């Protein structure tokens, strides 16, 4: 790092000291990163269990590599410039007053533009995968309200409702395209499942459509991410991914139970909900893309 040629006379004496300080500074900046316990190859993110979420995860890895390639040298340059060119005590010499270096300036304008174009291209490719809505094999109508969730299975005449302390569970089939129709009965909520690497607002007056294609069975934790009032911190739900066969069994069991319980209509009306009965308008202009 320190070749004798770029060390003016008199600086060499303190260069060891400087190097120690530099290392100290780097350690200082790196310590919180290490403390926060990132998994190196994942760059801290989840691999995700949906095919959409995996695309996002790969984009995340790509962005992280670019971020490190740009970020670390830039960070090093900042620290290097600040320490390497420190003035010595009593040095009143005026340094060279360089103000412009046009080729250099053009270089560090053009290169970032090219990087941005690359990042944008990758973004568009992944975005098209994540927001695509292929023909679904299952549909769930997800309705958010203060402070809970209602999962309705259109055509199957039952819904699952739960709020705050009893979080409801949505069941969806593995390896299939599951269409979600997301709505809100009152304020803005956020539908977020961390293992899916995905979130979407539940907006009053709008039906938000998106597709989840889970690749793995299991129960995953979800919750509201958009501040929605007093019990926002308690607005949980779960998503249970099961094999398509078990899904069909579960569907018919739930439907039979619902028919038995009420004779016809929906199972459960346990929770009070505010703002129920708001007419729902379809989203305007295919905004889901």
């Amino acid at each position, binding site marked *: 790092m320190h070749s004798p040629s770029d060390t003016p006379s008199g600086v060499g004496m303190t260069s060891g000291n400087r190097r120690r300080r530099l290392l100290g500074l780097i350690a*200082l900046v790196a310590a*919180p*990163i290490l*403390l*926060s*316990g990132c998994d190196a190859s994942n760059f801290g993110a989840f691999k995700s269990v949906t095919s959409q*979420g995996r695309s996002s995860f790969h*984009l*995340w890895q790509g962005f992280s590599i670019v971020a490190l390639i*740009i*970020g670390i040298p*830039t960070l090093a*340059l*900042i*620290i290097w*410039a*600040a320490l390497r*060119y*420190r*003035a010595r005590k009593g040095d*009143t*010499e*005026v*340094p*060279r*007053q*360089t*103000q*412009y270096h046009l080729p250099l*300036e053009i270089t*560090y*304008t053009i290169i*970032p533009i090219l990087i*941005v174009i690359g*990042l*944008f291209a990758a*973004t568009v490719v*992944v*975005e098209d995968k*994540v*927001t695509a809505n292929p023909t679904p094999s299952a549909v769930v109508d997800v309705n958010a309200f203060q402070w809970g969730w209602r999962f309705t299975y259109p055509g199957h005449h039952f819904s699952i409702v739960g709020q705050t302390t009893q979080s409801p569970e949505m069941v969806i089939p593995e390896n299939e395209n599951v269409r979600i129709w997301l709505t809100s009965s009152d*304020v803005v909520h956020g539908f*977020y499942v*961390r293992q899916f690497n995905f*979130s*979407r607002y539940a*907006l*009053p*007056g*709008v039906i*938000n*459509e998106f597709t989840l294609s889970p690749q793995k069975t299991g129960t995953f934790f979800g919750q509201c*991410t958009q*501040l929605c009032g*007093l019990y*926002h*911190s308690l607005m949980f739900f779960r998503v249970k991914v099961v094999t398509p066969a078990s899904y069909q069994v579960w569907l018919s069991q739930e439907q039979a139970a619902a028919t038995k319980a009420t004779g016809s209509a929906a199972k459960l009306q346990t929770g009070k909900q505010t703002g129920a009965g708001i*007419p729902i308008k379809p989203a305007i202009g295919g*905004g889901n*893309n």
Partner: protein
Amino acid sequence: MTELIERPVAAGDGGMHIDHFDDDHGGHDHGGPTGILKWLTTTDHKIIGLSYTVTSVIMLVIGGFLAELIRIQLASPNGTYVSLSEYNQLFTMHGSVMIYLFAGPFAFGGLANIIVPLQIGAPDMAFPRLNALSYWLYLSGSITMLLGFAVAGGAADFGWVGYAPLSNAIYSPGYGADLWIAALLLTGFSAIFTGVNLCATVFYLRAPGMTMFRMPIFTWNMLVVGILILLAFPVLTAGLIMLYCDRHFGTHIFTVQGGGVPVLWQNIFWFWGHPEVYILALPFFGMVTEIIACFSKKPVFGYKGMVFATITIAALSLGVWAHHMFTTGVVLLPFFSIMSLLIAVPTGIKIFNWIGTMWGGKVHLTTAMLFAVGFVITFLIGGITGIYLASPPLDFFTHDTYFVVAHFHSVVTALVMAGVGGLYYWGPKITGYLLNEKIGKWQFWTFFIGAQLMTFPMYQLGLEGMPRRMAIYPNDPQWANLNRIATAGALLMGISTLLLVVNIAYSWKRYPAGDNPWDAQTLEWFTTSPPPHHNYYSLPPIRSERPTWDYNHPDARSLAHGHQVPDHAPAAVTP
């Protein structure tokens, strides 16, 4: 650090002597009122600016105190330090106080108010009475907002973004919400008037010789901020009036019942809110540019590139608002994605220009310079994580999690570093006294380490799936540990803020500064510290963007303006 250079009055040197009606004019008053009455009736930009600065630093302390309460609550999973309702008030008011009452007013009401007229050789702001009105509106707005804690039902509790319909009369019936709206209207008008003043001052009151491309970068940035204020703040003001009408006059602008569109509020809010990010950031970019150039003993590297980068950032900032709304599902993702990604380019140019300014210079790591370098490092982190958020698929899983919170806290803690650097740098010009460097350096290291210690665990928390604005969180040991580290970082920053107060008390009238304690470059260092009533007795010739430097270093002068010196030529030496 550097000895003062003897300088004669500049008349006859191509400079300008300012004629005064009488010799006593340089006194601190016109024989007018003194004491508190003077403070109440003043139209002097320096006194108004100082009032702004002091008020906004008090707001910083209040906002920081609220943050400490938030972090104490989050130090354990099922925190019982405050109730759910109190917690919602705490983070709403923390965000509101910091954004509306500290960051903006500190920059464009405080330092800019004092420094811009000085940097361009103007005797005052263009509209001194309007300037005074700005301050009084700001002060009354600040008090109005804080009074929310005193009314039944408590302060506003719907987040500093006030998303409709949560902020309407059904879901947030309290008076705190109305006070919040009223406060934003008052401070909004204050900002608009300051924007008018900044633009008019820069366009009309520049001293002879001070062409646009000789203005210091700080003044350039404040001009652009003034224009952005005029474009963005009226939109927020209009939105707030609509929200108030929804709450009290039965309109349905943001409610579905009656045909309104809730997401319209988000469009209006962020149409103001994203330019606002740059209204907050650009002044601090300017401060850092001045500090780095001064303490590297070099001109700003790539001065014109810096100006165009500022203008580009401002232009792009008007077309990126919906990147806050990627997860609404009702915005055109690719457009807002590319616009947001592109902002990284001019911002990157700035970072490289700051490095270039230090490169080959004589870097004096004073407290102000440390804060400036700390700003660049922290801002780099915040900037890079911002690039992730400009990509919709990545935003989908980081939006509304602690990742976003960490991202903008990297940015705003960087801005606070720049602001404190600005206080250490320009404080002596405003008060005539230096602050203690030793306490200053302690203040820097506690703040810098605290800021990283707070934000890095937050990034990881966000990726672990912790949503923002949760008063209590599930008992996951890793979440708890990360939150504890973040709380330790926040406490360290609290100690740093106390050190600033200690330093001001300790250094009170202790270290006389002289006119130009840093051997600085721009025009404001030519006048006395503090400057006389109308700022200048005389002006040096203004032939570059750093007239004071040219005057004090006549041999180095020809090296400015981008002329390259042959490699074999010796560097110029001060006489």
